[in-house]
């Protein structure tokens, strides 16, 4: 079929090595793509909601990850299929943009695809389906805006923020101490938030983990933790009112960039060189001392001699501190990163109320705490946990919670969780469908059905009867005209999510619907899959 004819009727080949490629066209291509997308969604479906299960992933090197986070599962899965890769991308972009709801977006896209497949079998053109979905998603997003509620929070009233973060955390393994973690996340975000501009730079929050202890020991530190210790074992382990010199130059004789050679051909030269060398070290240390620094943090290593001189002059120092950490320290302490000893001035020193070294466990693990900084805009969340996997999973959960808190600061509208928003949208879309003439009407109705799949999966994962529960909640919503009824996953006894305090952010939910629709549209538009055969 890949033959075409030019104007003289001579055949020419469009696809090279035609026989060696497998090709799927038309409805077959659609079906194959849809089933691949559905397969990915099916994997994630059981992870949805507070009673969702985890996945255990074993990497090519044999490391084990246990997680509930959709984006992480998909990223670490060895996915080969192109459409499946699209779904992976979808969850990743939700992760980048919103940070939470990565599982939900894939499940939603999966159910859209499922509905689309049915319509395709009816013989509706894929583009019409795609257009119908597009209209429906607009209706849904507008409807979300209508049912969304604003809520006020301030430094004095953090409760709403904490409640929202708790909703996010409740589906993770850390839900044992979700209250504590949610408080930590909210405080951390508020510490770095710019409430005027309504923006939060999450880079200022460092999440550090150390195996050992228990989850309850996780703490928020207004300052920085560096996984390093003092360069000389006998330097003081505790410095109060530290003035910190932050250096990116090594304590070594300078290495000019231009190539050069120093030739030694006489005894005098040899001796002057030696004196010069000693002077270098002496000068460097003296300069740090002269500007009044009481702690030196350096990106590079020290020579033994310099190390001892520092120790001798009672100037504690930390070496091999990474670039990112160095920047954070600079922000937190209000210091400047100094690239050359000559440029060291007293104004460029950072200030911290307390710097201390803390050791953990029975091994020689030590960490450096820099606290009570001049500028408390950089904070660290320090996670403890029973094992490496718990720590990693907690880091991911905290990241989600931080993102949620940030989104709320950017836009303080919320919708209610537990599937209530989806049900309400589904009702609204269903009602709107009848007003559209043409084939799109079917697509819009299918969209409404697909939205039901999220509460359905929630109910299924919580061990409830999915269809029975959903229809009960739906009729309750319509009867009482109250969009806050959702699935009672935790068996609390009420369906009213307003009472259960289960919130999600409005932008998160909107983004989920928009992104899922976009990907589905993209997949529907493909009608030809050409793949090279294996060999």
């Amino acid at each position, binding site marked *: 079929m890949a033959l075409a004819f030019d104007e003289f009727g001579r055949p020419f080949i469009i696809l090279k090595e035609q026989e060696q490629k497998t090709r799927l066209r038309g409805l077959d291509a659609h079906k194959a793509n849809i089933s*691949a997308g559905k*397969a*990915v969604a099916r*994997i994630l479906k*059981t992870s949805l909601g507070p*009673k969702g*299960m985890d*996945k*255990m*992933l*074993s*990497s*090519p*090197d*044999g490391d084990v990850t*246990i997680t509930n986070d959709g984006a992480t599962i998909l990223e670490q899965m*060895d*996915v080969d*299929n192109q459409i499946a890769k699209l779904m992976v991308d979808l969850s990743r972009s939700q992760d980048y943009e919103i940070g939470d709801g990565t599982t939900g977006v894939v499940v939603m896209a999966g159910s859209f695809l499922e509905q689309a497949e049915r319509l395709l079998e009816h013989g509706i053109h894929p583009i019409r389906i795609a257009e119908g979905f597009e209209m429906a998603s607009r209706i849904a997003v507008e409807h979300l805006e209508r049912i969304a509620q604003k809520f006020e929070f301030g430094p004095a009233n953090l409760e709403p923020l904490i409640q929202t973060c708790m909703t996010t955390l409740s589906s993770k*393994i850390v839900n044992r101490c979700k209250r504590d973690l949610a408080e930590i996340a909210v405080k951390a975000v508020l510490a770095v938030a710019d409430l005027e501009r309504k923006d939060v730079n999450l880079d200022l929050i460092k999440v550090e983990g150390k195996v*050992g202890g228990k*989850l309850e020991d996780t703490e928020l530190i207004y300052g920085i933790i560096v996984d390093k210790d003092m360069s000389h*074992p*006998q330097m003081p382990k505790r410095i109060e009112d530290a003035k910190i010199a932050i250096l990116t130059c090594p304590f*070594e*004789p*300078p*290495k000019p960039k231009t*190539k*050069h*050679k*120093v*030739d*030694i*051909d*006489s*005894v005098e030269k*040899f*001796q002057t060189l*030696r004196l*010069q*060398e*000693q002077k*270098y070290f002496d000068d460097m240390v003296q300069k740090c001392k002269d500007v009044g620094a009481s702690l030196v943090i350096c990106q590079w290593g020290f020579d*033994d*001699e310099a190390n*001892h*001189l520092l120790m*001798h002059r009672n100037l504690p120092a930390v070496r091999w501190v990474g670039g990112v950490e160095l920047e954070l320290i600079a922000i937190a302490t209000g210091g400047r990163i100094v690239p050359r000893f000559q440029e060291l001035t007293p104004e460029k020193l950072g200030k911290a109320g307390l710097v201390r070294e803390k*050791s953990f*466990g*029975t*091994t*020689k*693990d030590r960490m450096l705490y820099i606290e009570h900084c001049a500028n408390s805009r950089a904070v660290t969340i320090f996670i403890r946990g*029973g*094992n*490496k*996997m*718990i720590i990693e999973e907690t880091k991911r959960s905290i990241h989600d919670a931080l993102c949620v808190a940030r989104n709320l600061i950017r836009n303080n509208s919320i919708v209610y969780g537990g599937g209530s928003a989806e049900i309400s949208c589904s009702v609204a879309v269903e009602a709107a469908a009848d007003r559209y003439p043409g084939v799109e009407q079917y697509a819009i109705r299918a969209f409404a059905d697909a939205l039901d799949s999220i509460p359905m999966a929630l109910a299924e994962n919580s061990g409830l009867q999915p269809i029975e529960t959903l229809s009960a909640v739906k009729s309750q919503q319509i009867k009482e005209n109250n969009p806050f009824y959702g699935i009672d996953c935790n068996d609390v006894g009420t369906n009213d999510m307003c009472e259960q305090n289960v919130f999600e952010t409005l932008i998160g939910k909107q983004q989920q619907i928009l992104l899922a629709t976009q990907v589905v549209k993209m997949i529907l538009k493909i009608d030809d899959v050409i793949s090279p055969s294996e060999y």
Partner: protein
Amino acid sequence: MVVAKRSFAFFMFRLVVYFLAVEKIFKDEASEEKGERARMASFVGAMAIADLVKTTLGPKGMDKILQSTGRGRAVTVTNDGATILKSLHIDNPAAKVLVDISKVQDDEVGDGTTSVVVLAGELLREAEKLVASKIHPMTIISGFRMAAECARNALLQKVVDNGADSEKFKSDLMKIARTTLSSKILSQDKEHFAKLAVDAVMRLKGSTNLESIQIIKKPGGSLKDSFLDEGFILDKKIGIGQPKRIENAKILVANTAMDTDKVKIYGARVRVDSMSRVAEIEGAEKEKMREKVQKIIAHGINCFVNRQLIYNFPEELFADAGILAIEHADFDGIERLALVTGGEIASTFDNPESVKLGHCKLIEEIMIGEDKLIHFSGVEMGQACTIVLRGASHHVLDEAERSLHDALCVLSQTVNDSRVLLGGGWPEMVMAKEVDELARKTPGKKSHAIEAFSRALLAIPTIIADNAGLDSAELIAQLRAEHHKEGCTAGIDVLSGSVGDMAELGISEAFKVKQAVLLSATEAAEMILRVDEIITCAPRRREDRM
């Protein structure tokens, strides 16, 4: 197991058919296991690991021989759970979780590495039964959580804190050391080693840095000949022609190059045009070294310890000046020496008046077995110390070191957190009783999980008794009856093979260890239970280096 495998294969076959029908989304060798099958795979893996180390539990536990696959096929004989698990090559992801918790337990508290794995294994074994009777894993998890919290509170109530009374505290420490050591190779001489360990830890004065306790292993003699040295022993020889014995030593501890002092300025090189010039430069170099040595001597010392090599020339100079020079002490040795003698580690020698020198009463060469060692005695600060282990073979010594390490870890943690419990299965019985009571009060399906938790706790004393060849069913039943009385102190007395009074027998354990065992085992079990799908990526291809 065989039946399980057969049904596995059957499942697999069905799965393959199913997948072919749908669509392949993974890469070639990646695999996916779902639902019941995934859960079964992780249960089987985790329980296999727990069963593996089960027989090493308790005072009558047996050892394992580990043979490495590396060159030489080195053999380790050990009883330490963490060591056994570390050397296993495991493919099952759930089993890896258990190995990981045992490692963390080792790093964090040092002991209880076997118990934590066994408890997690028992929890999963109980959970498997519950899952088989159609209780949702999430319900089991929430039951386990309640149970773990309740068990912890039960322990907290029964805990004894003698931290304020130093006499009693020391006897507590002795008891803990004895209990820890009794399950190890050192059990024959536990009295001796318990004293060693307690003395060593008391010298640390609350710091948990075990680096400052040096353990030197010298084959020969018997375990009983091991001793704790108040001073410091450096595994080095004294240079020839240098004094073998120094009284009132002033020690300079240094980290500096004493070979050829290289020029650190970048790009420097020596270029000469005649032989005489070479000689001159060489002379200058020598002069430089001589000056350095002079400067060092000017500190007024009679002992010089360097981390790096000392070449013959400076060594000779030191010998001339009557200074004892010791080269190539490793970094830990230097740090410890600095700690013991109170000196600082120096790298420049220009201002002798401000460098802090170390002091000790006597330096002498001593013989342990056939080896000569340098002994520093009468040191100023007593923080660091040395334990010399003697034993029949390397295997015995290695195992003795691990055992002693466990004891030291536990003791140093106890110094910080002085809460103490009784041992011999007593804490498990206390927890099991409380948890059982909670199960009766809790409505709903959770109570099954809580009950299961208490059964898993009981498994630990059962295994201890089984390993000792006792009638576990009878003993545990007796213990349970005993524990229904108020203020009971009964536990298993493995030596006499009956129920005994733990307080009288002096068997104690650190609260911190028990708490860590309880919490991390529950956490690990919870994690494995939550999994309903295992996705394995294709293994990374490696070049065959063999």
